[in-house]
């Protein structure tokens, strides 16, 4: 296995483990120690403390849980909803397809992050609202992709055979079309993880995500901007973690695209 594959895999795996095993570790993310405010590092906390004297490592793990939950939640919801809407729309055609295409056009016609910011602002703070706001924005990409893919495979012979045999449209989409179009959707989902992680942190940075005392990497960075002069580690720690996870997801997406994309292979 090459470095390009195991480096992102190792990072994603650590992120996953941090999020999953976080609750089992003996952590005190909300333990305030006034004597250690903004301290760079000491023997018990290598990453240092924040402006309230809370250990950054413990908060980093808590932030990993937040970003992981939101990423998995948003990507799963939008993958399922978007794929189904797009696939059914592409398969059925007609007025339903027209309507769906119109809606997709409207959603794609203005910046998604702006809608997410406005929605999260209107819905009010909280992780659930972040998931809702981001899912409302992200299903569109999957819908457009799966619709285009279904259009390109729906005239294949095995689909025609299934239609001739009287198989119901639902089964045709689920059994004969979806398996064929999964590869590009998985690649899209991998890139989706990267953009959702950034978007969640962005919303939390703006104060629209998790609420204190819960931690998100975005809210940790926001806290850090106020102490940039005296405690840059408050930004560096969550900033580097965030960057590594996003970089890893992007690298993994690139790798998957090279490996899974059938069209690329045939061309070679």
């Amino acid at each position, binding site marked *: 296995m090459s470095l390009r594959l195991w480096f992102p895999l190792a990072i994603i795996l650590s992120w996953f483990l941090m999020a999953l095993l976080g609750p089992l570790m003996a952590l005190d993310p909300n333990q305030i120690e006034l004597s250690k405010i903004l301290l760079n590092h000491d023997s018990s906390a290598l990453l240092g403390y924040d402006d309230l004297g809370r250990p950054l490592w413990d908060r980093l793990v808590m932030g990993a849980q937040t970003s992981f939950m939101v990423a998995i939640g948003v990507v799963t919801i939008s993958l399922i909803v978007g794929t189904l809407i797009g696939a059914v729309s592409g398969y059925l055609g007609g007025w339903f397809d027209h309507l769906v295409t119109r809606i997709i056009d*409207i959603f794609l*016609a203005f*910046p998604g992050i702006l809608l997410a*910011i*406005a929605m999260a602002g209107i819905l009010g703070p909280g992780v659930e609202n972040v998931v809702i706001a981001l899912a409302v924005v992200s299903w569109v990409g999957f819908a457009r992709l799966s619709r285009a893919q279904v259009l390109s495979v729906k005239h294949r012979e095995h689909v025609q055979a299934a239609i001739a045999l009287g198989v119901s449209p639902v089964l045709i989409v689920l059994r004969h079309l979806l398996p064929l179009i999964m590869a590009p959707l998985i690649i899209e989902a991998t890139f989706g993880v990267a953009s959702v992680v*950034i978007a969640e942190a962005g919303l939390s940075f*703006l104060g629209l995500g998790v609420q204190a005392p819960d931690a998100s990497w975005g809210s940790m960075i926001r806290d*850090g901007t106020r102490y940039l002069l005296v405690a*840059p580690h408050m930004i560096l720690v969550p900033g580097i973690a965030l960057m590594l996870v996003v970089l890893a997801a992007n690298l993994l997406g690139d790798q998957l695209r090279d490996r899974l994309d059938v069209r690329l292979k045939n061309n070679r």
Partner: protein
Amino acid sequence: MVNFIASRLLSALVVVLGVSCIVFLFIHMIPGDPVEVMLGESARPADREALREALGLNLPVLQQLQHYYIGLFQLDLGHSLHSSRPVLDLLIERIPATVELALASLIVAVVIAFPLGTIAAVRQHTLWDQGAMGFALIGVSIPNFVMGPLLILLFSVTLAWLPVSGREGFASLLLPAITLGSALAAVLSRMVRASLLEVLSEDYVRTARAKGLSEWRVVWGHGVRNALLPVITLLGLQLGVLLGGAVITETIFSWPGIGQLTIEAIQRRDYPVLQACVLLISLVYVVVNTLTDLAYGWLDPRIRLGEG
């Protein structure tokens, strides 16, 4: 061509009206009462009713939507719930700062991306290529709310060359523009590379080489110029990312633009202002995309005839 323009403009109008409708409905469906925010929880019910009536909030939602659209066509966006000033005035006050920031970021992005993408394409599969694309990948992966503070740390705190925030002169524009432009530069350099690679494999490039033109003339005269068109189109599409990013970048640097106004409006639950900000940004985005479409249709007849 007339049909093409008309259909493009019509669909742009549908999008803008659709977006404003979505935003309006979202704002009016959610719990949380702006009247309560304005008057506080201890206000007398009679006062609340009076204010509700004054703001038109007691009407059915559909009627409010109708009033909103009528106002929109008269350029009446209502009044801010926070400062009671006309929303249009607030927008006009903030627009120059955002335009300035967006243009500066665009320049930063183009200045970084074109040389980088060109080198990567011309020296494909070499260290140059890998270096440039590695740089682009890292650029895509650093969110602007990490990039911004890091730049402040380096240039304002450590080196003390540039101001930390605010909008006072050219020096204060540099850091926000680099923050916002670098992400775009990363995306753009990948596009330049891909587009140039495609062009460089064309027959006329081979002919140019066979004629004995210098490599510089081949790449610049025949390559980059032809690779530009698809890149410019994609640049139009990236504007949305730029405008979305402006909201965060303006917050980091206290840049008094539309993005900062949006966040202020959210914090103050100032719905007329929020609604207008979202509408304005969508409008700009849709207009730029429509213009890009039209320009492309003008340059490439296959598209306007629907064969593309």
